[in-house]
């Protein structure tokens, strides 16, 4: 049974989620890949305002294909998350509570998640056509020059994700694999 999440995601809610939980996310989420993360962290370093409300925000690591006329967005599946590892701890410290991507995260990200209370979700990689159907509205709010990598404000409905790493550092990539291998021995 999937857990329903309405963004913004509070620290308390983030801490209540456990690795392996299936969730359906609705509400506003923001898109950013490494190029946008780099710029956001430069703003932070310069003491400037961020271009999005980072408190309790969920950031989706995605660079969508262009929308066709009359559609909100093109294909929009997750990109590999480790490229954001250098930047995520800064944003988590500022209030980011949710990250959606795919693939492994570094220890510095997991440490920040545990310290501040944040959760790392996975969306199914390579399923951009399917996932795009959950995006009802998309609007570029910063860095239009980055094209697909611009920051977008998305309104999503029942966007399917799984908790990969929770705020205690439990990791589905480790537990899922171990559980499967153990089942073979039974």
């Amino acid at each position, binding site marked *: 049974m999937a857990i329903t999440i309405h963004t913004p995601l509070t620290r308390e809610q983030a801490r209540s989620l456990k690795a392996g939980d299936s969730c359906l996310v609705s509400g506003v989420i923001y898109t950013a890949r490494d*190029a946008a993360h780099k710029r956001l962290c430069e703003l932070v370093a310069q003491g400037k305002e961020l271009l999005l409300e980072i408190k309790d925000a969920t950031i989706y690591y*995605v*660079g*969508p*294909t*262009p*929308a*066709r006329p009359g559609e909100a967005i*093109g*294909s*929009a*599946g997750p*990109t*590999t998350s*480790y490229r954001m590892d250098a930047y995520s701890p800064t944003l988590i410290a500022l209030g980011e509570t949710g990250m959606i991507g*795919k*693939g*492994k995260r570094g220890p510095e990200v997991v440490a920040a998640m545990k310290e501040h209370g944040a959760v790392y979700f*996975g969306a*199914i*990689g*390579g*399923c*951009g*056509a*399917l*996932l*795009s*159907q959950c995006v009802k509205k998309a609007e570029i709010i910063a860095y239009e020059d*980055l*094209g*697909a*990598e611009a920051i977008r404000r998305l309104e999503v409905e029942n966007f399917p994700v*799984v908790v990969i790493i929770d705020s205690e550092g439990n990791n*589905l*990539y480790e537990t*899922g*694999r*171990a*559980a*499967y*291998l153990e*089942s*073979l021995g039974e």
Partner: protein
Amino acid sequence: MREIAAQQITDTVRRLCIQANCHLPRDVRERITASHAGEPWPQAREILERIVENYEIADGNDRPICQDTGMACVFLKVGQEVHINGDVAEAIHEGVRQGYSQGYLRKSVVGDPLNRVNTGDNTPAMIYYDLVPGDQVEITVAPKGFGSENMSQIKMLRPSDGVEGVKDFVVKVVEEAGPNPCPPIVVGVGIGGTFDKAAYLAKKALMRPLDQRHPHPFYQDLEAELLERINALGIGPQGFGGKTTALAVNIETCPTHIAGLPVAVNINCHVTRHQTEVL
């Protein structure tokens, strides 16, 4: 000598870019379905079902299967009896430019690896030419996503490392990649040649239909054994656990130097895309 206009190359490349990005080849779809049937882990089966649902949506609506519509790798087999009127490379780049624009595909290429500015039209294409006998031109477009490309590796083994060294290296590359390249993956392996040739063979191996095995029985067995070892790792679809870590292992080989044993592993995600047309 047969004449082919460069414009025809452009039109074909444009069409193939869109086709390849929206329609998964039959052999890949069949392997995914077969893997689903043989997958004992319920969560893994569920993910494979979503993957099928996704490529069916893409196929039915002419939508990109994945938002990473890749770098356009273009392979040409040019018959020696053909003369192409015009600049072939520019004709290919123009086809990519038109295909990525008209097909609403993502532009994912930066013009310089360190001063990273998007070229805005997904050019240049990565072009590979083969001169072959005959009067035809065969063009394959294979859009390559970088989630999986980034997990690829090459190693110059010693001849004494032998077949065991090759097996261990291939399995190690897949295990280190884990969930990152969007498993289930296709594993392209190039063995032999030179440093660069091994990498080229690994990429070429990804073009071979998944239901077609290496012609040599020795390498057929090696492909089967590697697939079995990889699917015993337990990584599973998306890395959440399960049997189906890889759909296939395709090996391409080449003679090599007495002192060397180059091995390259090029990984592709489950969206292993390529389309071919013959002019």
